[in-house]
């Protein structure tokens, strides 16, 4: 099926607001938040595209683009550094487009690039979700249903305080209603931020929406199209989570400790999640550490206790230190006899000897980048 998706181009949209992620997104977008020990959120959308055979990907850059440029570089680690097609960076709309909120202006500003592609279809993915998806069945579904727009949905895993698009759909996937909810209830069929349409339809829709004063792709284009066009929803049955709040970020990391989910996300034959390659040495376990039910990335040195936690690259857990139910990002150090529980540490945090920090499973404590406690 690889060659089939060859005529689909990918657009990865990184321009998302994220009020509930607080300090996690102070200097980065959701797409560049570190996740599961060695990844960034964008890796999931981008790897799913590459594994589905998409070879032509435009990255719609946010204002805070440095972390993402440093991460993706030439696209080589995703096999997207190519003489033909490959990765293209699409900068945010310039001044001549005028000040307007929303994402449509950025699609509009890059219409020339999209139209110049030889692809027949556009697959738009907002890089704010964690999934490992094969887009080929979605293309077949789209072609079989004769949809104008196919959107990927999945039932919300839990109540979610962040607004989202929710659909009501018929058994065959036809969307019967579509609405914005200020907060989601568990089980709501919410949009995963993946939209597939013919390139010509996509471009015409963007042009028309923008030129009629629209600003938001989902509200002004997709929901408006609902009145006159056929929108189908494709339910993704595998694991998926939107990273829309600190709690969702924390819980989704912890969810990776389920070996079945770990396997589904990362170990399926032919469906790896790619990320920026780094030459980090394997993990060193010292004399008598206690490590259970945890994900540990390379470069870590573990002498203390680690339980039910996700440790990113180069984390040190010194003797007597205890890390429980926590997410510890790259380069952080938990010094001797320090204790953390239900904590999210950003990069290069130091928890000094003997200090203790505790959050709750429903309200993890966040420690900002480079903070020393």
């Amino acid at each position, binding site marked *: 099926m690889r060659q089939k998706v060859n005529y689909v181009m990918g657009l990865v949209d990184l321009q998302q607001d994220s009020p509930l992620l607080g300090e996690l997104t102070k200097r980065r977008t959701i797409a560049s938040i570190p996740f*599961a*020990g*060695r*990844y960034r959120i964008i890796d999931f959308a981008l*790897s799913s595209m590459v594994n589905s055979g998409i070879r032509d990907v435009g990255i719609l850059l946010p204002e805070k683009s440095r972390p993402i440029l440093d991460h993706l570089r030439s696209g*080589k*680690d995703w096999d997207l550094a190519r003489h033909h097609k490959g990765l293209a960076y699409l900068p945010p709309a310039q001044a001549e487009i005028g000040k307007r909120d929303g994402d449509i202006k950025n699609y509009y500003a890059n219409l020339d690039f999209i139209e110049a592609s030889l692809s027949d279809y556009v697959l738009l993915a907002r890089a704010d979700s964690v999934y490992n998806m094969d887009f080929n069945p979605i293309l077949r579904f789209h072609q079989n249903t004769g949809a104008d727009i196919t959107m990927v949905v999945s039932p919300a895993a839990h109540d979610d305080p962040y607004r989202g698009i929710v659909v009501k759909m018929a058994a065959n996937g036809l969307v019967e209603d579509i609405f914005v909810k200020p907060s989601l209830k568990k089980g709501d069929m919410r949009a995963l931020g993946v939209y597939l349409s013919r390139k010509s339809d996509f471009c015409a829709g963007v042009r028309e929406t923008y030129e009629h004063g629209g600003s938001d792709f989902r509200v002004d284009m997709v929901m408006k199209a609902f009145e006159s066009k056929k929108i189908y929803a494709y339910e993704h049955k595998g694991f998926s989570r939107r990273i829309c709040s600190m709690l969702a970020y924390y819980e989704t990391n912890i969810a*990776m*400790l389920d*070996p079945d989910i*770990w396997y589904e*996300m*990362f*170990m399926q034959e032919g469906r*790896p*999640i*790619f*990320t920026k*390659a*780094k*030459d*980090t*040495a*394997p*993990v*060193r*376990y*010292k*004399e*008598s*550490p*206690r*490590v*259970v*039910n*945890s*994900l*540990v*990335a*390379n*470069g870590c040195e573990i002498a203390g206790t*680690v339980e039910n936690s*996700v*440790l990113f690259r180069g984390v040190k857990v010194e003797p007597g230190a205890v890390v429980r139910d926590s997410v510890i990002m790259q380069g952080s150090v938990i010094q001797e006899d320090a204790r953390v529980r239900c904590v999210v540490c950003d990069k290069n945090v130091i928890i000094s000897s003997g200090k203790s920090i505790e959050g709750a499973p429903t309200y993890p404590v966040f420690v900002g980048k480079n903070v020393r406690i």
Partner: protein
Amino acid sequence: MKINCLAMILAGGQGSRLGPLTKNIAKPAVPFGGKYRIIDFPLSNCAHSGIERVGVLTQYRPFALHNYVGNGNAWDLDGRTGGVYILPPYASAHGADWYKGTADAIYQNLNFIEMSDPNYVLILSGDHIYTMDYSKMLDSHRRNKADATIAVIEVPWGEASRFGIMETDDDGRITKFVEKPKEPKSNLASMGIYIFSTAYLKRFLEEDAKDEMSEHDFGKNIIPEMLAERGRLFSYPFEGYWKDVGTIESLWQANMDFLAKRPPIDIGGEWRISSANQPVPPHYIGANAKVAQSIVNEGSMVFGAVEHSIISMGVRVDEGARVTDSVILPHAYIGAGAVVDHAIIGSRSVVSAGARVVGREDAIAVTGDGEEVLPETDERRQVG
């Protein structure tokens, strides 16, 4: 385009003393340290030493090695004008030949050397674990106005008769070279790392090629010939960790060396060893697992007990299994309740539930690549 120094890595050896581990792959491609392959060490050393063009001479079972080295990108050796060149034996108008020895392998690639037109040629082997700044050795070669420089390391006197031993004068000039002497008069062992001034090397290689009695070997033929002609051959003393991993026991021991409290090489430090990265996630340590004094790489899952051992990528150790003092190579599977002690478990090997692979420090047990060990198969001992 003229370059200063061209490195040639001799990576064609079978490594027959590694037994089942090199049944399907050449020795330099043998996995090491949980994440690396032996050839990562010379390649990373080249990259850090500023050597931008590297020929990799292959012969025995080269596919895995070719595939692994690729275009040299993992070591930043894929520049537009430099990079890695894989040099297997080839056929020419005069016929086709295998590489008949280390010197012959270089001789057959003289046209590659001429194309690169280097001032110096650095000869390396693909079977040692060490870090070394070759640029310092090159400085020493130039300072001495040497024809050839040979890196040497002091070995324990008791082991000297296993090595090529160098006798030197006070300036470090080599006066005598004896391959595996019965009664060594020096404990300076050749590390198999040579720098030659190109024209000088070429002359000796061409003469050696005409000599039908020659074994076409650097240690046995080329170096003695150079000494016989009173060439300016100098030693370059190296201090630090250097381990030949040509046998099962030495390969096992070198792996164990990295489990020490202070590992002999800071493998992820400034002089970091690079390797071709695989897209695999952080490893997972299960709810009833126990891991101590060990190195564990990405992409593995540990549900059992692992002590003083090395777990490579993609390995799975099931619940109740015990792995002690062992090296588990990539994608091997250790079944529930299995016992692995003083062993090297080959890539993609399967140690079935309840099976035992138990060796001794002086007789490390080995399973070959993809081999399956069943519980009935009692203690296996295979001496390397």
